[in-house]
């Protein structure tokens, strides 16, 4: 560029309104406490991302509380300190005038004082784990599970496959049966075939294995049955129920065992109903409740006290995280919704542990593009803007895009109490071990490839699985490289 041209651009920039340059200067000053630095502060890497959420939740708790007139400075300060204590806010690092200013800011509901957000953000404990470098070793691309579907339930694991045969009358193949195989510690315990049943999932209970699915239809005029069966640990089908609930398309998300030995079947019908059936251990249906929940599917179910917590998946492209709490019969009790202002969150698993709910998730920066594939938008932009990219650069772009997040939620209030984050990774499965530990899988990118010609995904890769352990009191115990690899496809 010619120097005079640079000067002209500089001159144009000189004319930017003070309000915008002030805004940017204050932002930098606020973020760095008066200094601008490129260094990341250890332990606070992603607090800001949850900051707005945390602040909003906290604000609901504090708005409407103490409001008084303050005559003397000391009285105002004492009131402010009491307010901080009452609402669990920290005065650490704040001057006397800061404490009063934040106090005024909150009770007046203005939220304009620079330190207010910092104080509110600090009310939720956040920790960024610095993970061991997963490296970029040459690893063979991992292929996802192929034909056999696999499900884990405690020490039992299940795999199944669908068998089809040609119907001579119809002239095409229809489902003959689902072959289900149960293993324990790597040894096959039993194999059972379910004729005409399209199996969706199974789980182990004290009464045996719960198996659920539906009948196979090739004509929409055929009646749709949901199916539930119980198989003993010896491989005998103890009972099987074919249920006609007037639902055209049902998707059972889980069958969970209650403390009295009954089973609760939870699913989504016709893309807008939550259905919950309770069964006795011998297969008698005790109750059935169907509730309109809008265009939501069910992604995860976890037990919560005597009821259940459901993580919903929007069928309309909504991006916030929605949790619905139900009692054991399926009556909705409460719902919680979470959203960040500059990130999208995708919850991958959830579990109850130590009386709290843990959500495993990953976040990606909010994109401005309309339409789908928000999660991958930045990666696709990178690929199209850098056609000569190297694999190393693509791996780095993926690491820049994803952050694994573990959120600890209070089950009563729904408010987040703590969270942990790991940069460059995806939050994976949560498991409560037999030793009473909570294990959180974190999948870190080690290789990547672009596959524009594949219909089922555009970007693939391999992640190294790290495991983070937490004790019964929620205290972090350590991380380890499991040596396992995970296939990433989007």
């Amino acid at each position, binding site marked *: 560029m010619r120097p005079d041209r640079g000067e002209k651009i500089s001159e*144009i920039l000189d004319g930017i*309104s003070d309000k915008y340059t002030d805004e940017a200067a*204050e932002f930098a000053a606020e973020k760095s406490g008066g200094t601008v630095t490129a260094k990341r502060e250890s332990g606070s*890497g992603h607090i800001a991302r949850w900051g707005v959420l945390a602040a909003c939740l906290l604000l609901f708790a504090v708005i409407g509380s103490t409001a008084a007139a303050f005559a003397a400075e000391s009285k105002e300060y004492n009131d402010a300190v009491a307010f901080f204590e009452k609402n669990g806010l920290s005065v650490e690092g704040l001057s006397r005038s800061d404490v009063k200013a934040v106090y005024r800011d909150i009770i007046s509901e203005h939220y304009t004082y620079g330190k207010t957000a910092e104080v509110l953000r600090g009310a939720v404990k956040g920790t960024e784990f610095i993970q061991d470098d997963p490296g970029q070793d040459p690893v063979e691309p991992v292929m996802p599970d192929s034909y056999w579907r696999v499900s884990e339930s405690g020490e039992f694991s299940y795999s199944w496959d669908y068998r089809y045969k040609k119907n001579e009358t119809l002239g095409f193949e229809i489902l003959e049966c689902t072959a289900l195989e149960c293993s324990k510690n790597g040894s096959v315990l039993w194999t059972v075939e379910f004729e005409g049943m399209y199996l969706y999932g199974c789980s182990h209970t004290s009464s045996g294995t719960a198996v659920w699915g539906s009948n196979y239809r090739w004509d929409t005029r055929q009646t749709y049955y949901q199916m539930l069966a119980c198989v003993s640990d010896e491989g005998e089908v103890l009972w099987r129920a074919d249920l006609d609930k007037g639902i055209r398309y049902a998707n059972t998300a889980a069958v969970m065992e209650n403390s009295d030995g009954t089973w609760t079947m939870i699913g989504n019908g016709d893309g807008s109903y939550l259905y919950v059936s309770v069964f006795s251990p011998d297969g008698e249906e005790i109750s059935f409740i169907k509730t309109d929940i809008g265009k939501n599917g069910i992604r995860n179910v976890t037990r919560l006290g005597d009821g259940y917590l459901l993580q919903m998946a929007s069928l309309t492209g909504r991006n916030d995280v929605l949790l619905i709490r139900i009692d054991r019969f399926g009556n909705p009790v409460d719902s919680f919704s979470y959203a960040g202002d*500059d990130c999208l969150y995708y919850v991958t698993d959830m579990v109850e542990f130590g009386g709290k709910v843990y959500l495993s998730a990953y976040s990606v920066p909010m994109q401005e593009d309309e339409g789908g594939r928000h999660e991958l938008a930045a990666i696709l*932009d990178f690929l199209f803007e850098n056609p000569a990219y190297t694999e190393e650069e693509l791996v780095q772009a993926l690491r*820049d895009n994803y952050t694994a997040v573990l959120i600890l939620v209070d089950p009563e209030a729904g408010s987040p109490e703590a969270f942990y984050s790991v940069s460059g990774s995806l939050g994976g499965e949560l498991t409560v071990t037999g030793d009473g530990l909570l294990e959180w899988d974190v999948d870190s990118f080690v290789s990547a490839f672009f596959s524009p010609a594949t219909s089922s995904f555009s970007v693939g890769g391999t992640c190294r699985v790290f495991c983070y352990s937490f004790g019964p009191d929620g205290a972090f115990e350590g991380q380890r490289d499991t040596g396992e690899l995970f296939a990433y496809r989007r």
Partner: protein
Amino acid sequence: MDDGKIIELFFERSEQAIEELSGKYGPLCLRLAENILGNGSDAEECVNDAYLGVWNSVPPARPDSLPGYVSRIVRNLAVKRYRSNSAAKRNRSYDSSLDELGDCFPSGDSVEDEIGASELSRALDRFLGGLDRRSRIIFVRRYWHSDSVGDIAAMFRTGKHNVSVILSRTRRKLKKYLKEEGVLQ
């Protein structure tokens, strides 16, 4: 110390005002001067001159935003000094941030060049007013404060790649906006 209190100290003509200003916003000012001038004694001199500028102008001025106010003085002084520097002292990273905007403004080889800088500034201002806050701060930090993409990414606790994408989209939008406004063919 609270910014209001620092300004009061300037009004009281207390030399402690400079100390407080330097303690609170010194690194911010030095970074801005270094972004434009490159590392070196020039940047430090520029910041010291800026403190003197604040001392001479407050009062009567009572800035709404102290970091914004001192940043403007630092930038003005740094850009002025940069323009007078010889070619040998050019700062490539500052030039490259201006380069990025090269496509968005008239090239200077046509009648469009008749459009004055002040008119383009007003158009840029209107454009910035229509942006979301995050994109606007990123844009202003990059091109007015001349921050590196890495510094901005750290500030927003996000990846460098994400910041580059946001900047690239904002520049595209700016170019489109200026065309629609009739200041760019």
